[in-house]
């Protein structure tokens, strides 16, 4: 096995990562891919803010602005936030529940590669005739009339990467239901695992509506059907419903893992058990359920009628209740704790007021009559950036810093981390706070420029300055990562010193089989329980025995690659002058189906690490 080798060349390492089915390596793949897309989306954001810095600006043209704006939103949600969330889940959840891997390691890898090729496909649109330009919501009334192939890239790219997301979600459900170590009951699961569980269920139910919507849109654009074409008897509102039935749960898919990460961080650095654990679990589950009953709050101004608007307004406001429960529990976790302000903790503390402000404007938006004023203005832009940046991005930055040692065995520099934190926090509020007022003054969202002398100049300038602060913070973070990786100072099991959950009981990074012997969990915060009993290790729940491991495989990559190739054929198929499209579709599908066939007929039982090998190397893994 390649994983045995300590030192290996670049080619071998690359091959190792291309074929890996190890959740820890897949986490790193998600982190790298998500990080690259995050920087790309950030670059697009900078172009947006430069264009809007001064009135009547002509930094970019109107058409190009639409493309940048669309790709910023789509990239950030689907290709940056989602994979970064999956990076955290993959790195942490199997360790937190005391498992040796996820339930389906092969599918885990397949999920990643589908996401990756979907994202790559979407972004190749820049070089192949123009990016999608109908907004990240791609409302059918607009996207059906978008010329060129931009929107087709959106449809096919999201279809492929959405498949990967669905697979990953199902995998985590199976993992958390079946792979918990002895003693790890549901009500002893760490909150990050709980939020992963709920989020995976949301993915399971929320992504199919998107898939259906994208298929219908694809038929409308590529095969001349009329599901959404009003002139031909279709109904454009159906797309909006399908999109938001997916879209609202999607925003909770992003925020719940951040909630989970903050719950871990706040308990760890307050050196106190999370306040109100069971109410936190209850609130997480309730948010998951309610998240499916509120989507029409994005459509108040469509004209659904007063009864529908009232029902959805009340349902939306109801979500604030479990969210409020969480906020108070976090505050009470810190209350009376011996708080240590590390970088992750700083993010966590800053998150609470920032996110709450986003929640408050959310409730304002939920008041349907008032939303007639807010809708499609910068007020909404301010709202969702407060929840997404102040919640999700803070959560991811905190999570990456917190779990960096567990993923790579090194600690990020605290001073550089604090510089990043402060500039990011200041930049974030500078950029988005003022946008509330720009919106209330009537500045519509999704416009490529504004006129002079409308009172919008100062606000937009301030917003742009803030964006540069955030860009600076991200650059410092990247420098921090580079310095840390070059120095490569290895740390021990529990580098923060106050780890509470199972992942901190094993080495950083863990050996490829995670736990030599599955650990016995004796309570909530399993590792903390042992520490309080004066132990330094977990009690094993099983005798030392052979460990069954899955084999690496290149098939997930080739399966996804085939769809990627076929998508090009499908995309250009509607152009009459291109005759090569059908062969390309066939070749692509043959690659995919061939890979699936090989996977089905070739017996792959994995391999065993023998007991003797485990007893030999003491440094490889701490005894569980």
């Amino acid at each position, binding site marked *: 096995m390649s994983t045995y080798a300590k030192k290996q060349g670049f080619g071998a390492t690359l091959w190792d990562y291309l074929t890996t089915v190890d959740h820890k390596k897949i986490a790193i793949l998600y982190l790298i891919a998500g990080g690259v897309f995050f920087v790309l989306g950030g670059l697009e954001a900078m172009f947006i803010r430069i264009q809007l810095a001064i009135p009547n600006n002509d930094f970019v043209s109107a058409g190009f602005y639409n493309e940048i704006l669309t790709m910023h939103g789509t990239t950030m949600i689907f290709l940056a936030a989602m994979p970064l969330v999956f990076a955290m889940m993959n790195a942490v959840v199997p360790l937190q529940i005391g498992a040796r891997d996820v339930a389906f390691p092969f599918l885990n890898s397949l999920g990643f590669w589908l996401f990756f090729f979907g994202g790559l496909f979407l972004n190749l649109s820049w070089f192949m005739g123009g990016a999608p330009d109908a907004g990240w919501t791609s409302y059918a009334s607009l996207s059906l009339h978008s010329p060129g192939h931009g929107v087709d890239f959106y449809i096919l790219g999201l279809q492929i990467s959405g498949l990967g997301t669905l697979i990953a979600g199902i995998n985590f459900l199976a993992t958390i239901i079946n792979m918990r170590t002895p003693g790890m009951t549901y009500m002893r699961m760490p909150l990050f695992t709980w939020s992963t569980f709920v989020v995976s269920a949301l993915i399971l139910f929320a992504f199919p509506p998107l898939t259906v919507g994208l298929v219908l849109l694809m038929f409308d654009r590529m095969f001349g059907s009329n599901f959404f074409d009003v002139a031909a008897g279709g109904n454009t509102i159906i797309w909006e*419903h399908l999109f938001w039935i997916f879209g609202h749960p999607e925003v909770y898919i992003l925020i719940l893992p951040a909630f989970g990460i903050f719950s871990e961080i706040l308990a760890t650095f307050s050196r106190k058990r999370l306040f109100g654990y069971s109410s936190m679990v209850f609130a997480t589950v309730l948010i998951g359920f309610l998240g499916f009953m509120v989507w029409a709050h994005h459509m108040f101004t469509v004209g659904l009628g007063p009864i529908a608007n009232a029902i959805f307004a009340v349902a939306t406001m109801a979500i604030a209740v479990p969210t409020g429960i969480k906020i108070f529990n976090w505050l009470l976790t810190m209350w009376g704790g011996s708080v240590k302000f590390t970088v992750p903790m700083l993010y966590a503390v800053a998150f609470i007021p920032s996110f709450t402000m986003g929640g408050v404007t959310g409730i304002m938006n939920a008041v349907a009559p008032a939303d007639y004023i807010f809708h499609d203005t910068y007020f909404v832009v301010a709202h969702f950036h407060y929840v997404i940046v102040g919640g999700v991005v803070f959560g991811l930055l905190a999570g990456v810093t917190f779990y960096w040692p567990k993923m790579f065995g090194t600690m990020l520099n605290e001073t550089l981390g604090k510089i990043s934190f402060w500039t990011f926090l200041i930049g974030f509020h500078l950029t988005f706070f003022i946008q509330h007022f720009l919106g209330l003054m009537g500045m519509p969202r999704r416009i490529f420029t504004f006129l002079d002398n409308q009172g919008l100049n100062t606000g937009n300038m301030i917003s742009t300055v803030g964006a540069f602060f955030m860009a600076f913070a991200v650059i410092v973070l990247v420098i921090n990562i580079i310095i840390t990786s070059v120095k490569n100072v290895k740390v021990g099991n529990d580098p923060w010193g106050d780890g509470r959950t199972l992942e901190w009981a094993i080495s950083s990074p863990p050996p490829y089989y995670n736990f030599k012997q599955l650990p016995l969990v004796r309570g909530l915060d399993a590792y903390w329980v042992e520490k309080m009993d004066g132990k330094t290790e977990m009690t094993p729940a099983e005798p030392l025995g052979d460990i069954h491991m899955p084999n690496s495989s290149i098939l997930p990559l080739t399966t996804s690659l085939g769809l990627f190739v076929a998508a090009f054929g499908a995309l250009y198929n509607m152009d009459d002058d291109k005759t090569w499209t059908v062969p390309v579709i066939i070749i692509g599908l043959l690659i995919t189906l061939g890979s699936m066939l090989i996977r089905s007929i070739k017996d792959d039982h994995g391999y065993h690490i023998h007991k003797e090998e485990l007893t030999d190397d003491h440094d490889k893994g701490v005894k569980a």
Partner: protein
Amino acid sequence: MVNERLNSANPSFDLKYRRKKNAEEMKHQVITFAMMIFFTLIAFAAVGFDFSKWFIKPVILLLAVVQVIFQLYYFMHMKHKGHNTIALFLFSGLAVGLLTVLTFLTIVWW
């Protein structure tokens, strides 16, 4: 699940117990199977006898729902222990799906 005690230390006890269980199980399956056939006959008869469509449609839908429940609980063993999580996810999915259908019926198409 019923088969969980397959490798108990006392095989003869286990065998007797399982025989009885299996016979019971078989009885249930035969009864539900007969009822499902009967329901299908009713459905065909309702259409065949040309009743009002306001009668036929609800009746057929109701019979269909009952058949699905039989299918899941008797033939796919969901009545056995250890299926709580499956039931939870099944019914959550159903709730989400029905909510969507309900909204589409009320505010999109009518």
